[in-house]
């Protein structure tokens, strides 16, 4: 089982975490076309590269950000949402 380093709780088994998907920026709901909104909802980026993702440590209900390489699975930088991206 993999380890994930939680910014709040340190290294824990990956089973303690919930993956919440890549960070997406919602377009302005008033101005966006239906197509743009659908792309925001369903078009998740999936490049073989470092992606910024949302994760949650389930026992503490703590949501944080992590830079993860989608090819290797390696987590380069887990950090609190309050920190600069």
């Amino acid at each position, binding site marked *: 089982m*993999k380890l994930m380093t939680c910014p709040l709780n340190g290294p824990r088994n990956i089973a303690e975490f919930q993956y919440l998907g890549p960070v997406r920026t919602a377009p302005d709901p008033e101005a*966006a076309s*239906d197509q743009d*909104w659908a792309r925001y909802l369903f078009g998740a980026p999936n490049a073989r590269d470092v992606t910024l993702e949302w994760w949650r440590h389930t026992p503490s*209900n703590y949501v944080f950000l992590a830079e993860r390489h989608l090819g290797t699975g390696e987590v380069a930088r887990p950090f609190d949402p309050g920190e600069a991206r």
Partner: protein
Amino acid sequence: MTRLPPPHGRRIDRSRPLSFMFEGRAMTGFEGDTIASALAANGQWMLSRSFKYHRPRGAMSFAGTDANTLVQVGAEPNVAADLTPLRDGMEITAQNVSGSLARDRGAVIGAFSRFLPVGFYYRTFMGPTRNAWLKLWEPMIRAKAGLGVIAPDAPGLAVDKATLHCDVAVIGGGMAGMRAALDAAGDGADVIVVDDQPSLGGDMAHAADTAEADALAGQVASHPAIRVWCDTVCTGLFEDNWLALSRVDRLWRLRAARVVLATGGIDQIAVFRNNDLPGILTAGGARRLMHLFGVRPGRRAVVLAAATDGYAVAHDLVAAGVAVEAIIDPGGQCRDMAPEGIEVIEASIDAAVGRHHITGVRPGDRTVRCDCLVLAAGQMPAWHLPCQAGARLKADGDTGGFAFDLDDETITLAGVLAGDGAVRPAMLPLKAHSKGMDFVDLDEDLQIKDIRNAIREGYRELELVKRFSTVGMGPSQGRHSALPTARLVAEDTGRALGQIGVTTARPPTAPETLGALAGPHTRAERRTALHRVHQDLGAEMRPVGAWWRPYLYGSGDHAARIVEEVRAVREGVAVLDVSTLGKLEVRGPDAGAFLDRIYTMAHAKQPVGKVRYCLMLNEMGVVIDDGVAFRLAEDRFFVTATTGAVGRVYADMAFWNAQWKMDVDVVNLTAGFAGLNITGPNARAVVEDLASDLDFSQEGFPYLTGQRGTVADVPVLAMRIGFTGEASFELHCPASRAHDLWDAVMAAGKRHGLRPYGLEASRILRLEKGHILIGQDTDALSSPHDLGFEWALSKKKPFYVGKRALEMRQRLGATRKLAALSFELDVDLPGESCLVLKDGHPVGHVTSSAHSPTLGHGIGLAFVAPEDAVPGRQVDIRGRDGRMVQGTVCGHAFVDPDGERQKL
């Protein structure tokens, strides 16, 4: 039973004899024996019949690296005879036997082996009809190839799981492993050493001279920073150094900062005709028998010395009083190492001779009589774990050795795996015998020609050869078959061995007990603070998700009791334990604004003291939860969520606020609070009799308001809501005070006929009222419009989760609507999931249905075509038995559609 005199047999305790049965015959062994060593001591070399041809087979390595040692012990099948300690009174039987082990009826199959080519199963059993495999062939083959017998009524194995942590895990307790452990412990590390044998020492544990190994093992055992796990197999090495350690009755999950792999070498066998006869042993197997168990491998032995170790084994055999008839050395370079007076034959083995046991060896044309053949064919480094760690096994064409390329700084290879000792397999010629029975894989009964035929069929890659022929898939996981298979593929495809490699080594590296993987039968369950109270009242408790809830009270006829409980609510007063309800506290200056974005209704301007329905959507505009929000203060809300979804709602709130960064905190109070719902026309009379500072009057406590105060000195949070459709008072209190609140409520209710009711009555009551249950009456696509919940959508708010998607969905138009249906009295009520048909096509399904005690006929909720969701319309439903049933669409509620009763 005669054993070799000491110092032979250092593992057995001759003062403690053990009795056991094998195939109905009484035998004896000693404490310290394995099943296989005790059988060998009794002259029983044959342990099983082979998988396909039912050939006689025995143990070769006496170390668990070959596959034909599986026996049945009592009710337990597939016990490895050469790894399992003998116990007094064991009843052992052979496996995969038709008739008796000695006279196996299935052995005749061997004579037809040329009609059973490789890939036989894939082609032969396709016909004659489409289901022939399931109906005809599979039962026949299963009966023939059964590996052991399952006893369904056998007592369960006591199994458990444990988690370990250490700085350094050393896998393999041989010389290299022990040195690595002592080095690491000397540097201050916390070390665990794992070995699959009963004691440390590796190959040196069964050498003639063990002084050095014993000294090292003593140091390891006495080192305070080293823990030793013997009789334990490391069956898998997973990411971030997560190791599976398996013992028959226990599975350890070990997390190590660093791992040292010192799994040593695996004795190889040679491939020639009849190389599977009982009496053929590996060099290590012969040594284990003599030195560990004091068992003479035979009276007259022949030794294959394809590696120089063969000469050393010959000396060991001579010292044990075994007559060595000849040493067969294909290279002949080391003949002067032979014990005095023993003939060295410079040849390869053409065949072994014998029916149930080896009786001779044929190097070329002559036959050397013997009852034991010891194979010193070199070793392969145990590649399974290094390969799981990501290494590739590379053959070095010049030296005939193997090396690994492992790029992981937390994993170290030691000993044989690191190339120490120049361990390599002997590359004996692989020549198919004209009469066959030259086995490459003894697990799966595969001969040289089978591998060659698979390659000829076009399976030129090793992985494909494996899949087609099943080579290496048996219990020994290719420990003997991987190298000859790779060599055959290299030869027949004109490539170098280095280009072929070995097949992917996946966990488990060795057989594991399914029970140990499953672990103990424990189930996480939750009980409300009033669990015992319900039991004392005779409630039938049922699991709802992780919770146990009272389903129905009392005894006697089910249906009649449900009607009683429903009537009590409709005509008098009753109480339900609602402690499992999800409860969240949302607080902070932005609490109202936050709920405005989370839920569809308006909460920012909700007055303090008011209770408001809340409906939660996901971003796709699908209804995922509902509840109520009670505004306790400007900056504080008490929010309920459904029992099953509160975890998700709590998580979603955290997720959204990580993005929105509003000034708000959410606390999950579900387990901390207990709740009672007192409901019925007489509910107010009951609560007014409570010793309380709350104003329970009609004017003081109207519908959809909340108050805080005390009841019988218990702090409570009270809400007026209406799930049942009757006047309801929902009281929440700290779970630690739930008993006090219950007692006070029951005492006050006594003269009003207050009684408890259970979950089933609650479900019927809500259905009579037309209230939906999210998850039961909704699915992964249900929008508020599908459910007729347009009233719950704020038109003024610029944003709430799912709003934008709802606008898009509305433009697509509705495809279905949830409708309340009533059924005639004589109709067989259609169950949940029954299809609603329109013109013969499904347009929806029944989501809930029940007999309504209040109305006296069946009612339900169902998705119907949007144009049919009009009161009075008839819809067609196909019942469980296929017969069509008609339902009539009603308004949204069956009982009290105007909602007057709940406001009382």
